[in-house]
């Protein structure tokens, strides 16, 4: 069982998804329970994986290697290391919680659950794949469940279905770029292979392209192609429009995944391929990455100030976090790299929780307008919905890097390193952070703690739904625990990533 653990973790959602797809319609109402139970079993497997993982070992663990297509020299190669162990666990946990929360809200169809579980498999495949071709296949595959779900089920009736089309065009372009870069890699290695470990030790043929003012080597070309591929999935300024559109219309469980782990697959690729395979090119382009991150941070912090819609506000906040992650990777230092990886995990949980809570505000108030939410009740919302406010506060604090919450330590790890390398830019970052913080906290206070000056609620008291039930609280409790744990004493989790980050930093040196 343990030897095949990664296989089970990868394929269990697909198998359950297929089972649900072919389940007779008479058992339709049971589909959500089947999905929830299977995801719980899946979570137990992920826990076993973490417990069995040896943090002192530098190489791959739980490796599974078989020949897949000899004609393409592609292998079915899976493995777990310090870079992906936490991401795999986060994926499984997030899917489990989103399925649990979705069962409390409404009954989704069995087809929805089957496609949703298929999405889980494909995201896990990206994290677990240790073969470039396999990784590319999962990369491409992961876009289509999102496309299908947003195409079939929409929260907002969009007659033209442009958001899903917009999304798939971006993802298709990203896949083509990834395909190009892996084949360029393959054919220009001294020993052609798709195996990531082997690519890391092999050398590229010394081809360079002379442009008018400068020449560019092949590994730099591949690095740029990979970077473009990543920027089409990670919402990065100016390529974030697809993210805004699809987030607006996605169903709650899908929205939770899209705002968290789905986009972070790109962040993982940045570490796994760009930083691990092309340390020299990363060193060359790191100022560019850090500058891009800073531009994104400044842009998002200012745009937060002018938002009137809570959903949009959250998306800009996420842009801010992704900008910080780029700064971390661009800073190259060991603590910055570890901080970036850690930031991915913390943002993952914070963003998913925040997305869910914002959707719940929408359900309760009937609008995402900040002004409408603030005036929805005669008394402040914090008194009307105390549990809800508590959860919202912790989720928001977790994303905002408030001390002892979520991404606080990650931000500190990145910022200190950034300050040492780019002192002037780090001051700009600090100012942007303060602007962002003050803007978000202002809106937060306005919505939840300010008294309604109109003294007349926009929504009738009877229409405003009750606070969270016990079931809701129980489902949200793991999020809460994680947000606080990650911000206070995450040493045990950081230890899991330590060895792989060391390897990465040594490569960069």
């Amino acid at each position, binding site marked *: 069982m343990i030897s095949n653990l990664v296989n089970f973790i990868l394929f269990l959602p697909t198998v359950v998804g297929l089972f649900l797809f072919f389940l007779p319609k008479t058992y339709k109402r049971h589909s959500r329970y089947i999905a929830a139970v299977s995801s719980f079993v899946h979570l137990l497997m992920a826990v076993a994986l973490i417990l069995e993982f040896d943090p002192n070992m530098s190489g791959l663990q739980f490796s599974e290697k078989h020949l897949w297509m000899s004609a393409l020299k592609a292998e079915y190669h899976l493995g777990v290391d310090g870079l992906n162990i936490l991401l795999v666990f986060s994926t499984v946990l997030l899917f489990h919680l989103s399925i649990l929360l979705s069962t409390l809200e409404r009954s989704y169809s069995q087809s929805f659950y089957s496609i949703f579980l298929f999405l889980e498999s494909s995201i896990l495949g990206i994290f677990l794949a240790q073969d470039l071709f396999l990784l590319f296949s999962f990369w491409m*595959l992961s876009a*289509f469940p999102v496309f299908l779900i947003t195409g079939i089920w929409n929260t907002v009736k969009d007659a033209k*279905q442009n958001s*899903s089309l917009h999304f798939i*065009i971006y993802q298709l372009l990203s896949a083509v770029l990834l*395909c190009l870069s892996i084949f360029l890699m393959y054919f220009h290695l001294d020993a052609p292979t798709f195996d990531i470990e082997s690519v890391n030790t092999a050398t590229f043929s010394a081809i360079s392209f002379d442009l008018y003012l400068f020449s560019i080597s092949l590994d730099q070309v591949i690095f740029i192609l990979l970077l473009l591929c990543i920027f089409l999935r990670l919402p990065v300024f100016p390529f974030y429009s697809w993210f805004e559109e699809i987030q607006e219309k996605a169903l709650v469980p899908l929205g939770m995944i899209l705002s968290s782990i789905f986009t972070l697959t790109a962040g993982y690729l940045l570490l796994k391929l760009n930083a691990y395979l092309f340390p020299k090119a990363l060193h060359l382009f790191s100022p560019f990455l850090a500058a891009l991150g800073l531009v994104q941070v400044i842009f998002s912090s200012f745009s937060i100030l002018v938002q009137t819609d809570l959903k949009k506000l959250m998306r800009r906040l996420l842009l801010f976090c992704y900008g910080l992650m780029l700064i971390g990777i661009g800073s190259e230092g060991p603590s910055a790299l570890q901080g970036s990886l850690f930031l991915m995990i913390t943002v993952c949980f914070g963003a998913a929780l925040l997305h869910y809570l914002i959707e719940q505000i929408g359900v309760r108030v009937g609008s995402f307008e900040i002004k409408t939410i603030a005036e929805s009740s005669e008394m402040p919302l914090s008194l009307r919905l105390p549990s809800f406010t508590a959860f919202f506060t912790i989720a928001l604090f977790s994303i905002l890097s408030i001390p002892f919450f979520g991404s606080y330590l990650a931000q500190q790890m990145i910022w200190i390193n950034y300050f040492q390398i780019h002192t002037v830019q780090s001051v700009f970052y600090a100012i942007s952070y303060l602007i962002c913080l003050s803007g978000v906290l202002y809106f937060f206070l306005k919505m939840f703690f300010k008294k309604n000056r109109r003294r007349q609620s926009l929504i009738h008291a009877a229409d405003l739904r009750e606070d969270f039930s016990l079931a809701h609280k129980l489902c949200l409790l793991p999020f809460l625990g994680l947000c606080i744990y990650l911000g206070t004493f995450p040493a045990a989790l950081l230890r899991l990533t330590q060895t792989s980050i060391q390897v990465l930093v040594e490569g960069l040196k």
Partner: protein
Amino acid sequence: MKTHSTLSFFVPELFFLASIVVYMVLNCLNPLKKIHIRFLFNQRITSLHQASFRGYLLLLAVVFAVYAGLNANLSEDMIEGIFIVDRFAYFLKSLILILAFATVFHIQKTGEIHLEDKNTLVLLINAASFSLTMLSVSLSLNSAFIFLSIFTITFSIMQGFLKQKTASSEASIKFFIFNYFILGVFAIGAVFLIFASDSVQWLEIKKIIPAQLDDMSVLTLSFCFFISVSFFYLRFFPFHFIFPDLVQGAPTSLASYSTLSCSLVGFCFFKRWILDLFPENAGMIWKELIPFVCVLTICIGHFLAYAKKDLRRWLGSFSVTQFGFGFLVLALHPKPEAQMIAFFSFASSFCACFGLFFLFQVLLDRKQSVIEQHEAFNGLLSHSPYFAMTLILLFLNNMGLPPTLGFLQYIINLRYLIQEKEYLLMFVGIFHWLMSASHSLFFLKKIFQGEKTQNAQPNSFMRKLFLASFLFPILLSCLWLDSLLSFFQNAMILKVH
């Protein structure tokens, strides 16, 4: 050592020949006459043409099973007089049998064609399929000419048959004239070859062809003529404009048969009389002609398809680009690996187009109206979910979603082009990929959106199985890619004993 029975290899030809005779007799009788027949354990009164259809389909399925089973162990290529027994012909004939089965099956079901015309149509399909199967095994210029002529005649009659619109009839006449013109081109090319070799036999001709063609020799001229014939049937540039016109007014089942059978003829001819006969390095002509034609075929095909409103015309143009993409790897040098990839691409494009054509047929039949526009897809997911899912998967295959056959096709082609450092052709390939994706997205958008125009149609288990059968080769090919590629490699490289 002869390890294989030649007779079992010619089972499809014998079947088609026998069917032609039976259908000629049937046409002399009154096919609509009611007969009392116990058919498949159901005692019922039925008409002669219904009984003949069912008998035909049942026999065709048996023939396919027998033929595929008996020849599965075909391990070496043999020349028997003017015919060849090889894996290439084996695969091609299997495709023809499947195509004939699907077409006749749909003709039986469709309401597009009048009952009295159905028998005649099946007779023509039998004749065309017979000539196609014979063409795939012919190794003599005479027999190739005869079977190509039979195919052309039956095909032209088929196209002129049942055309109700004036524009469609004109397209048939245009096609008829072009067809005979191309037969003439083939005849001239053949005469040049006979003049140079003093023989009509493939083996004799092969012996006199040098390793390198001169720029202006008789052989070079015949090579050019043969390339034209092959490209005509493959519908490559500059012959791309004939076929979309042709399929517009025809019944959908005929449209699919005509498009796909023509591609089969073109590819078969290309393999037998160009790749196998002429040397690998056909000089500058190859390098100047083939890349140019392939790139133009892909680009023009996509732009034409983009402008099409009629579903069949769209698929006609789109399938041209699919087959053109397969030939991209052969564009500069027909190495054995490139030949294998081209064959694999051809087979996967055939699968994708076959599936799409057949589902379009079913869709247009279900609508029971004259809707031939994109609107036929509107809101399909809401009223026919299983059917829509099958179509969605076929479109995703066109988009190159892993692990579908389409994905493997794109990957293998692009991989080869990057390996050979053909970056310009690689960009054309990527252009094709993105354009195919955009076409598919357009249809997917239609399938998802739209109002529920009609009530959900119940799908029986058999119907679901039937729909799923289109997806088996598309979804499962990645599991046996190595075996598939090795089969295609063996089929493309002729090893005559």
